[in-house]
């Protein structure tokens, strides 16, 4: 009787002020493994304009402890829903200028579909359920970014009926 191949799914979750190097993170994730056929990389970057106003800078605040745990809960769910061979989530905190990296999600799998879907699932939940908050600075002052209904709708797509 053939046994199913043993796959391991290392998970790395980091919240940090420092920037990340996408190429380096992919290398860490895949290393010398030959069972990975697909890596999807999503980067969230600070934009210069938010619909109407010009953004000068963005400050990211988080709830230390809960942020890591909440991301872990969703990574665990992704690992149980898709055949993944590795997941890396890095979320930066601090003050960012337009063009700077904010978040990185890497998902590795044997085939692309699982990697694409899991990356999208993780980003949808990062936006609506991980305890991070953005404050915008613009020419007209500073203000907290309001949650978008479209982000809740995107996350709701993944709810199992």
């Amino acid at each position, binding site marked *: 009787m053939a046994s199913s191949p043993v796959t391991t799914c290392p998970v790395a979750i980091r919240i940090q002020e420092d920037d990340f190097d996408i190429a380096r993170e992919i290398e860490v994730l895949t290393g010398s493994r030959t069972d990975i056929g697909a890596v999807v990389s999503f980067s969230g970057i600070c934009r210069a304009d938010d619909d109407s106003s010009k953004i000068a800078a963005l400050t990211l605040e988080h709830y230390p402890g809960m942020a890591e745990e909440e991301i872990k809960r969703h990574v665990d769910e992704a690992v149980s829903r898709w055949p993944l061979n590795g997941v890396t989530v890095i979320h930066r905190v601090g003050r960012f200028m337009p063009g700077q990296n904010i978040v990185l999600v890497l998902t590795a799998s044997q085939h692309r579909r699982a990697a694409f879907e899991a990356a999208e699932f993780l980003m949808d939940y990062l936006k609506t*359920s991980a305890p991070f908050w953005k404050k915008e600075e613009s020419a007209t002052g500073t203000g907290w970014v309001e949650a978008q209904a479209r982000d809740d709708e995107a996350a709701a797509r993944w709810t199992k009926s």
Partner: protein
Amino acid sequence: MKVKYFAWVRERVGKAEETIEPPPSVRTVEELIAWLSGQSEAYAYAFEKPKVIRTAIDHAHVKADAAIAGAREIAFFPPMTGG
């Protein structure tokens, strides 16, 4: 119990965390919000729209009717905007 506040809830309350001792009659998250709102104008302002406020007990999201008995840390914050 320890209470933490984040983002504009923290700014309106005027502190990031504190230790509180609500009376035993305060049993749920929504009762705690109502009790805090009665403590000062700063809390009343922070919790003026209680339906908007999100709550976590011991690092897990909970609903307004969740019991607070046994909670070590309760956090109040606006809807999240990370990612």
